[in-house]
């Protein structure tokens, strides 16, 4: 079986998965990186654990510095060597080989070997990483007979496989520490004592800050001497902290649109949707298609015409975003300008509702509905306030149903007790990521599933075709057809392309540009000497 060298593979991966209109690359300047210095990061809550497979955003940004992954990625999702110094993929796309960096060690001196990789992918990731089964169910077997090389055999060709080898989805954990234990309860997940990433724990003042220092034994030596994470739960306080230089970097999870508006014009601060060139989301407001009148396509299409997407996008994002057309962000390689969405036309919406059998009654309304919203998520709240106004304008007696996080999740995903509800769907870096939201198989009472109960067999067939196809141009054609079908079925409205913005002081360079909102290795990051 002929194996392609990894150079060739990189080109192939680029061709099969990612292509952009314009070149968007690293966030850093052309200057030589400086060794040394400290980076202070403002995050919105203290990490609750140091469990390497946690789904908590504030844990992930820390453990990405503490544990290795096979590869790391730039803004184009192009893979770069990390724990794996080289890799090869077979021509049939079913065998992946990774050569590990020589001499890589855990902080207790034990070597990092292919056995750790095998253990992580077999015992840890599928069981404890919520997306683990979906992401890596395609693995048939893993061969770790050579400690320096790990070989994955897949059940079928799976184009997104390499792009999942990042620290968010696939951290490598020490087998000798985690074997046979529940990683959530393992002592090491609380202390972070035995790790193997570019940084290690220096001090953790509970509730205040967590400081990491350079791991001198790491396989990847970082530029920085130290990274401090400060826990600042209030958005305005975080913004002030950045303005005064008390922190140097606010990752997207710590940067609401309102802060963006307030930081604009400060020449010491840069605002960029780093990494979101490829991974941006779409604000998706989905119908509960299990119940009338939302089981009627004509009603959903009418409502799609009733919502002023341009206005929602501008108002919610302080004019930083545009209206979306369909389920994919328009930055995605799978998106195409030929896609036909719904024009804002309240009169047409009214006529369509009349035809669908919902004329205005004596009270001036056709029917009543509620709009689930989360007041703590500004994007949802503001967008839904406008949606309610738009709905009332066409004679639908709509009202907001504000729920906080836990009941919101229960109502939307578990109990399916809602009329419309909002979600942020990350799909851009590979359109295959639409499967959990729009495929028939994804209808189940679990978080981040197909809560709309949308099911179209033709769409499912296109999903299968798209994942099996290796040629990027052909994949794109498949996904464009798929998107138009979804748009025509109107299981949701898509008012806004939603990017995650980072804010940082101008002396910071090389922020992780991968699509995971900064939850990635800081090994290339550097700060100008002061």
């Amino acid at each position, binding site marked *: 079986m002929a194996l392609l060298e990894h150079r060739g593979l990189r080109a192939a991966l680029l061709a099969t998965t990612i292509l952009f209109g314009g070149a968007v690359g690293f966030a850093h300047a052309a200057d030589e990186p400086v060794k040394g210095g*400290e980076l*202070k990061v*403002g995050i919105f*809550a*203290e990490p*609750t*654990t140091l*469990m390497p497979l946690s*789904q*908590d955003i504030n844990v992930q940004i820390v453990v990405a510095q503490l544990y290795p992954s096979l590869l790391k990625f730039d803004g184009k999702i192009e893979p770069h060597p990390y724990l794996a110094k080289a890799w090869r993929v077979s021509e049939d796309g079913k065998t992946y080989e990774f050569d590990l960096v020589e001499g890589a060690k855990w902080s207790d001196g034990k070597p990092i070997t292919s056995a750790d990789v095998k253990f992580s992918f077999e015992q840890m990731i599928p*069981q404890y*990483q*919520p*997306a683990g*089964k*979906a992401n890596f169910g395609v693995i048939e077997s893993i061969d770790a007979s050579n400690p320096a090389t790990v070989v994955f055999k897949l059940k079928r060709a799976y184009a997104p496989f390499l792009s999942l080898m990042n620290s968010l989805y696939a951290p490598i954990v020490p087998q000798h520490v985690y074997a046979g234990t529940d990683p*959530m*309860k393992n002592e090491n*997940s*609380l202390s972070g004592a035995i790790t193997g990433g570019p940084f290690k724990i*220096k*001090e953790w*003042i*509970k*509730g*205040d*800050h967590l*400081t990491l220092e350079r791991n001198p034994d790491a396989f990847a030596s970082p530029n920085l001497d*130290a990274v*401090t994470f*400060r*826990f*600042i*739960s*209030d958005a*305005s*306080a*975080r913004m*002030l*902290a950045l*303005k*005064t230089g*008390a922190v140097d970097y606010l990752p997207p999870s710590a940067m609401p649109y309102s802060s963006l508006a307030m930081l604009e014009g400060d020449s010491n601060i840069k605002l960029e949707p780093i990494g979101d060139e490829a991974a941006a989301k779409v604000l998706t407001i989905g119908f509960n298609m299990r119940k009338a009148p939302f089981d009627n396509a004509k009603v959903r299409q009418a409502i799609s015409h009733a919502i002023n997407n341009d206005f929602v996008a501008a108002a919610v994002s302080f004019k930083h975003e545009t209206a979306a057309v369909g389920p994919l962000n328009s930055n995605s390689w799978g998106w195409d300008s030929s896609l036909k969405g719904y024009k804002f036309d309240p009169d047409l919406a009214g006529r369509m509702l009349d035809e669908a059998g919902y004329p205005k009654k004596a009270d001036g309304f056709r029917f009543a509905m509620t709009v689930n919203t989360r007041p703590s998520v500004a994007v949802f709240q503001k967008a839904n306030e406008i949606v309610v106004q738009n709905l009332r304008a066409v004679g639908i007696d709509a009202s907001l149903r504000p*729920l*906080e*996080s*836990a*009941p919101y*999740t*229960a109502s939307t*995903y*578990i109990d399916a007790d809602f009329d419309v509800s909002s979600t942020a769907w990350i799909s851009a870096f590979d359109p295959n990521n639409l499967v*959990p939201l729009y495929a028939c198989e*994804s209808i*189940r*009472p*679990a*978080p*981040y*599933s197909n809560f709309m109960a949308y099911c179209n067999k033709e769409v499912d067939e296109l999903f299968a075709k798209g994942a099996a196809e290796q040629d990027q141009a052909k994949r794109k054609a498949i996904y464009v057809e798929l998107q138009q079908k979804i748009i025509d079925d109107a299981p949701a409205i898509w008012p806004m392309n939603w990017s995650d913005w980072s804010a940082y002081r101008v002396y910071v360079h090389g922020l992780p540009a991968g699509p995971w909102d900064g939850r990635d290795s800081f090994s290339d990051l550097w700060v100008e000497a002061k």
Partner: protein
Amino acid sequence: MSAVPRIVGTRLLQAVPLVVATIVVNFAIIHLAPGDPVTMMVGEGAVSADQMDTLRKSLGLDQPLYVQFFSYLKSVLQGDLGISYVYHQPVTEIIASRIPATLLLMGTTYVISTILGIVFGIVAALRPSSAQDRILMTVAILGYSVPTFWLGFLALMVFAVELGWAPISGMVDSGLAAGSWEYWLSVLRHLALPAAVLSLFYTGLIARLMRTSMLNSLRGDFIVTARAMGLSRWRVILRHAVPNAITPIVTVLGLQVGLMLSGAVLTETVFGWPGLGVLTVQAVAQRDYPLLLGMFLLTSVMVIIANVVTDLVYLAINPRLRGNG
């Protein structure tokens, strides 16, 4: 004098059913609130129903509510508040790790605002409707009624952003050896703004109460008598008027002690102070039942204890209560 031990005993006995009732109510409120901790824990990503069931079982959440309650009650009585769902550490340890920060902030505030509040109240009451009274009471009402988070931001804008005198957030700079001179200096610098903002609030509250109470006291017949006996003005004020005026203040101060440990949620949030208030808010958001119950229990028990202690202090400073207790 034999009444005193009896009163103390009664008060303590009354506190026991109160604590138990508190546990029941806390438990019921939390479990009746909508939302499921398991759903919160799995976060983003696709999770199978099996995985969620396993998780639910491992937390004991598959048991009927009354079984969960009795197992909780049993543990609490043994001093075990359970393991946090989110932190995977004993609740007692998590709470204990945040108590010093909250005590430091609230204790400082408490001392400053008690002293200033009483002094300002007395000064204002001595010359009602004078300029000094009006100025002090205007400041007191402002301090008491302006929202602390707003005042907090104002203070941050002025002292941290514009003047650069104070740090923005947190309790201590990174990289300082714990317990060193530099460490404590850094803590003091971080403490100044939140303590000042909170003190303004509590000083306002206490000063207004003290003024009213002092005015009542100054109108009393015993003051006229004391003056008639030829005692000096300051002796009358300090020995006779103030001790009488201070009794209602003790009630308020006592209640505040109880609430102190619950932390100042808004102020802690604005200043990023690593105390119990922020911890509680996060526990609510994440449906961390054991941690939340632990916090509620701590606050409730502290309020009850503070009430008992306040009653006892009453006995000490008000001889009239001792006789007919």
